[in-house]
Structures are given as C-alpha cells and as structure tokens.
C-alpha cells in the first residue's frame, strides 16, 4: 500500500495512475484519502475552473471537446471531469461523455475523468470538489467540470467554478422555465448551441429577459452575462466563448483581487459548511447503518411503534452527546 507521501508526490508530479486512484478513493469514500487531500491542499489554488452545464442533449460534451482543442492549441494543460447521473434503480451508471472527447485521449496534456453522481451521503458536490483539488494539485492549468444541470447537487458543483457556462438549445421554450430553478442564477455565460436550429433568436430574447430579471449572483457587480450562439459540432462560437471566459476571469480579478476562492470569505463559508455537513453525516451515518440500528428503526416505524421524528432523535442525539433541551 502506497504511503500518503508517495501518493502525494506522485499526484504533484502528474502521475496519471496515482491521480486516477486518488479520485477513485474519493468516489468510493475511502477514509484514508482525507490524509492525501490534506497534504495536497497547499498545492491547490492555481487552476482556473470552468463549469459547463445544461440539460441532456444540448451538446455539452461536443462543446467541451472543442474547448479542449482550442485550449491545447494555447498550450494549456487540462483536467476534465464529466459527470453523469447514477441510475436511481440500480446504482450503476453509463458514463458516455468521454466518447465525444476521445480524440484527446492520447494527449498527455489532457486528463479526462468520468464521474457518476452516485447520490450517497456527501454525494456529488464533495466528491467533485475534492477531485477538482486533486487535478489542481496535479498541475492542470484549467479544469472543466461538465454536469447535467438539473438537480440542486449539480447547481452546487458549479459554485466551485470560477466561470459557469449554461448551455441551452433553441426551442427549449418551457424547458427554460423548468431549468430556471437555481440554474439561471449561477450562470456567468449563456450559450445557445445548435444555433442553426429554428427558434434560436426567440430563445436568445427569452433568455435575455429571464437573466436580466433573475441575476442575483451578479447583483451589485458589473458583469452582465453574455448570451452566445454556437454550433459546437462545427467549431463555431467556441473561440468566442473562450474569449468571454477570459473577460470574466479579468472581471473576477478586478473585483476580488485574485482568483483564489479560498481567499474569499463567502466561498470559504460555502465550502466549509458543505464539508462540515458531509463530515457529520459520514461520521454519524456510518455508525447507525453499520450496526443495524438503522434497519431496526425502519422496522419499528413500519410496525407503528415509533414516529420518524422520535426515531431520528433516538438515533442521532446520543451520538452527538446532546439532548434536545441542550
């Protein structure tokens, strides 16, 4: 078993297998990986993180594939995290985003990793944040996180990004209303892909209206999210997107002085509460499910012996050494 130091050294030197294994450990919730993450932490904070999100079928993977090509031409090293949903029925997942980026798989400067949302306690947000840290420590200049932006979890993920790009396609109409929940608020740049399709002008004006009404994120600031048109499959609009991302980066520097999230109280607060929450859940849940207490309690509620409010108090409070008047 490799020691923490060995692993850390390998990650920092860019060893792909070591990085892949660390991310796997994060995914699988291996406790020892925390030590690795602690040791890697001082090496993070360099990478620029771009979030790309949008409903299935809008062409995110194709867009990311083109972004990779452009950024590699500028000699940037890249880490890509492609997140796909875990099946709620089986717990398995087909991770197919990589297919559209496979032409880069032999490029040593690009590291592509597919992740499933998994949905266990701690879930997507923490795993992806930690994976971002690992790719950061590995030395990647730019990290792109691609998610299906429909759930609250995925919305949280993009909070770890410097710039978030929301992708839509023309004619989404009512679907734009549907994705409004939290998504529009976190967008820094909006991109209408497959812009040759019918309805792209209308989609643009609809979006413009909704964004201008709804942008809490940029309230008080001077960044007005641009809406771009693109046809990723034909490499049209991608250079313009990257230009806007550059502009956004400059904007962040002008407002915050630097690009280090962890030098900003609001970001740290966000991340810390998330991590504390996950740590708590991890620590307490392990005990409850492992000992069978959880299942016993389930059966007690089913038999009508107990209400869930009392049941959860019974499970948790003793673990926290608190009582409910305390």
């Amino acid at each position, binding site marked *: 078993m490799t020691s923490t130091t060995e692993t850390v050294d390998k990650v920092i030197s860019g060893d792909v297998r070591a990085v892949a294994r660390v991310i796997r450990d994060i995914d699988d919730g291996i406790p020892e990986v925390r030590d690795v993450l602690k040791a890697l932490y001082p090496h993070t904070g360099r990478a620029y993180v771009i979030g790309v999100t949008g409903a299935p*079928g809008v062409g995110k993977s194709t867009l990311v594939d083109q972004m990779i090509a452009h950024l590699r031409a500028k000699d940037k090293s890249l880490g890509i995290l492609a997140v796909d949903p875990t099946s709620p029925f089986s717990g398995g997942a*087909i991770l*197919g985003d990589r*297919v*559209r980026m*496979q*032409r880069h798989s032999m490029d040593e400067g690009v590291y592509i990793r597919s992740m499933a949302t998994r949905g266990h306690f701690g879930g997507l947000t923490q795993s992806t944040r930690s994976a971002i840290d690992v790719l950061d420590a590995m030395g990647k200049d730019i990290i792109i996180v691609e998610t299906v932006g429909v759930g609250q979890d995925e919305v949280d993920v993009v909070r770890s990004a410097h710039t978030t790009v929301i992708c839509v396609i023309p004619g989404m109409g009512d679907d734009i209303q549907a994705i409004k929940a939290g998504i529009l608020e976190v967008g820094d740049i909006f991109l209408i892909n497959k812009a040759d399709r019918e309805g792209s002008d209308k989609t643009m004006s609809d979006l413009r209206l909704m964004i201008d009404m709804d942008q809490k994120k940029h309230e008080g600031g001077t960044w007005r999210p641009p809406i771009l048109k693109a046809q990723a*499959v034909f490499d049209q609009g991608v250079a313009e997107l990257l230009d806007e991302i550059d502009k956004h980066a400059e904007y962040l520097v002008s407002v915050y002085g630097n690009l280090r999230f962890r030098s900003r109280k609001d970001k740290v607060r966000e991340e810390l509460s998330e991590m504390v929450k996950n740590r708590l859940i991890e620590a307490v849940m392990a005990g409850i499910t492992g000992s069978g207490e959880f299942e016993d309690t389930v059966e007690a509620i089913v038999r009508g012996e107990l209400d869930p409010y009392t049941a959860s108090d019974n499970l948790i409070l003793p673990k926290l050494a608190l009582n409910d008047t305390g």
Partner: protein
Amino acid sequence: MSLTYNREMLEEAREAYDRWNREVEETFEKHPERLKRFSTVSDMEIQRIYTPADVQDQDFNRDIGAPGQYPFTRGVQPTMYRGRLWTMRMFAGLGSAGDTNTRFHHLVKAGQTGLSTAFDMPTLMGYDTDSPRARGECGKCGVAIDTVRDMEDLFEGLPINRITTSMTINPPAPVIWGMYIAMAELRGIDRRKLGGTIQNDMLKEFIAQKTFMCPPKPSLRLITDTVEFGTKEVPRWNTISISGYHIREAGSTAVQELAFTLGDGIAYVEAALNRGLDVDDFAPRLSFFFNSHLDFFEETAKFRAARRMWARIMEERFHAKNQRSLWLRFHTQTAGCSLTAQQPYNNIVRTALQALAAVMGGTQSLHTNSLDEVLAIPTEEAATIALRTQQIIAEECGAANSIDPLGGSYMVEALTDRLEDEAFEIINKIDDMGGMLSAIEKNFPQQEIADAAYRYQQQIDRKEKTVVGVNKYANDEESLPVEILQIDEELERLQIERTVRIRNDRDNQKTRECLEKLEEACVEGHNVMPPIIEAAKAYATLQEMCDVFRKVFGEYRDPGIY
C-alpha cells in the same frame, strides 16, 4: 370503391367466428392456451386467427391490384418469377482479391446469377492496408482493395458486361465504384454496359451500421453526385441501395426497419430533387435492401407493405409520372443476427425459412447466409449449401410457381396493413422533426433501435422468446464440429508490399495532379466521379482519395448513443 369483401359475407363470417370464439374460450378455460402471449420476433402481438373482419375495409384497387399495377402490393413486375427467378446473389469476400475471385468463380459455377462483394474493414472505412489503423484487419471480414489493380484481380475472368455486380460499400462508395468503372474501361468495356449496385447509403450508417467517414451533409452531397453521374453515364447501374438490413441487425423491429429505410429513401429523393434532377430520371434506379428475419408472416407482410408504401410515397409525395419510379425493387439478405454459434447446423433451417419468406415477399435478389456465419467468413461448402437452399426453394418446393401466393390470406393482408400504418406513423414523426437528417442529428432512430435491441435481449434472457439450441433445447455435449475458414496471416504483409510497390512504380506526378483535381471538385462543388475515375486509372489508392474527402469535408466521430 371496390371493396374486396361484400357486406353479406362479412356478416356470415362474423357469426361463424363469434361461435368459434365462444367454443375456443370454453376450451381455454379448462386448458389454457399454449403460451401467455403470441408475438412476432418484433414483439408484435398476433391474433389466434385472422378472419375477413380483419380486412373488411380493404379496397381492391386502392390496396391490392395486380402485379405490376399500382400500388404494386403483389409485385413490381407483372410477370415476377414466372418470367424470371430472383437473382441468386451470394455476398462474398475474403482475404486477397485473388482469393475472392476464386470464390466468385466457384459460386457462379454453382449456379449463382449475380455477383456481390464484401470488403474488409479497412476498405469499408477508407483506409489502405498499410495504414496503422488497419493493423490486424486486412481481409478478415471481406476483400482488401487498395488500388484498381486489386479491382482487376477481383473480377479476373468474370463477364462483367453480362453479369451484374453488387458492392457493399458506403463512405468510400464513389471511390470503389470509380475503381470498378476504371477497371472495366481498362478492359475495353463501355461504362454504359455496366450493371450493378453500390450500397452507398450513408444515412443508415449514421443510424445503424456505423462505418463513418464524413459528416451527414457532405455524405449526402457525395451520394447525390453518384446518383447524378449514374443517371447520365451509367444508366444500368443502381447507384444506391437504400438499406434496412443493417437497421434490423442493429436490433430494430420490423416496423422500424420499414419506417427508417423508407424515411432514408425520402431524404435521398429530396436531396436529388434539390440538386435539380427530375424525379423520373433517377427514381427508377433507386433500389432497396431488406432483412429477412425469423417471423415468416411478419416478414412476408413487411415486404408487401414496403412496396405499397413506396409507391404511395413516390406518387402522392413526389408526383412521379414514370411507373418505374414507383417500383420498390429490393435485394434481401437473411438475418445474420438470428443465427447461433451453438448447434450451428440449425442455421441452415433458419436461413431456409427466412429465404422462403423473402420469396413469398417478392424479392428481386437474394443472399442466403451460411451456417457458419456466426463463427467466421463462410467456407466454400457452407456457402454452397446456402446457395442450394435458394435453388431448392426455386425449383423443388413450388414457391415460385405462382405470383404472390400468400396474397388474399386474411393474416398476411391484415399484417401488411398494420405494418404500413405503424411505419407511416413513425415516418410522420420524422417529418415533424424536420426530416431524416434532422432526426439523425437528434439521435431519434439510433435511440429507438438501441431501446428495441435491449428489450429483445432481455426477452431472450428471460426466455420469453425462444432461441432453439441456446435458451431451449441446448445440449451440454459438443455440437457437431464445423470447420472454420482461416485467413492467412501472411496476407496483410503481402498486400502491404503490393500496394507500396504500386505507389512506387506509378507516375506519381500524374497521381498527384489527379488528386488535386479531385480536391478541386470537392471544394468547387463539381461532380466527383470523373476525377475519381481518372485518379483510379492513375493508381491513386483508396485512402489517398478518401483522405481528400476527409480534408475537405471533415471527419465524423461516433457520438456514442447507447
């Protein structure tokens, strides 16, 4: 109005069948039906019995007619097999051009009446044998063709001015066809005498078979070039074989096979019309290619429905005036995906029944699979049995004595109607999406096929559908041994040597100029066929010409729909 069945008779029949149904229900109360559900391989539910009631609205003139009469339900030619049997055309290709040439001669001697060529993966994908991407694949699933020299060896000693040749080739189709024409002309044969088919159907590649090169729009342009060239210069050639075979092999249902194939056909007609061609100039040379799968009646009905649907589409949608524009002529191949590796001799039976369905369906040309298809390229013996299967059907069992023998069967007519209705529903959906190209971009047919394939596999695994010898009547003992064809490993090395030699020995200046002319044609929008034929005669290789396409039109990559 020319209702087939009169109202009085329908009343009588209804009473008789009501009585029958009551009796049947009584029996099944005590002794349940043999299965919970009776369905076709496509999972279409089948009734206990079909009666006149199931076809009561059939209008003779509108729906049936006579063979050679609109809507051609009973056959496109008036004389069908009474005049001439279907062409027995066995798909063949293995190893080197010389090896395949031997197989061609054997099959012709054994009685086949048309040639059909299978190419290896590098050729199908537009690579030369010495491309790094071709390593390990030379000659493994068909013949390796790099230059017109290979084409000459392939057809050595065969009367291509008298026999028709089918070539199953898609992205590189213009190049392979160009090499064929070049080869013929080098032999002194006038191109106007050449008869045959190139598959040349890229839409179904994006949907099902997945040999890719360029994206959909430029692929369509290249296809239209070949249609235009054929119409003017090679009038006896079918420049496109609009295919459903592969769609079915990828796991679609019979209805989907019909709908997506005819949907592709509609897209090709529209492309040619947009080019400025007159529908009656090219439509008579459009041909089709269907699968013949396990369910005998579903397949027979499917072929008849296809003919009727295409006639209606060509007349009502495209207003074709020439009767021949309304004809759906098709080649059929028995279903490869239905054959098993276990107890392979059972495959002879499957193929025979599938071939019979194709004959009942009025196919113009037929390939029967060999029993060892699931294991390797067929041996000569296995291919011969497959050919004999066709000959026995043609000459011993009476299937070809009368035209459309199953016409009028309540079941077959009802299924024909049903398949047509359900297929048109899907075609309407595709129209709503903006046509086939649009539907492909939206991954509609691909997803439908993936879903159907998964459903079917689950049914097999749950034993809801039987595969004899696999999930029922399987035996643990060794099956009767089958000898398999092995492709000589040396072949790849020899072929590479040959191609390299040709590249060195040719007039490279001339070849370069020809390739530049081809690039110009691609960029300027001129028909690519003339420069291709010139380049072929100058010994340009397959990949050199395909690389020009890749350069100008870009490459298409698998979007990975599962």
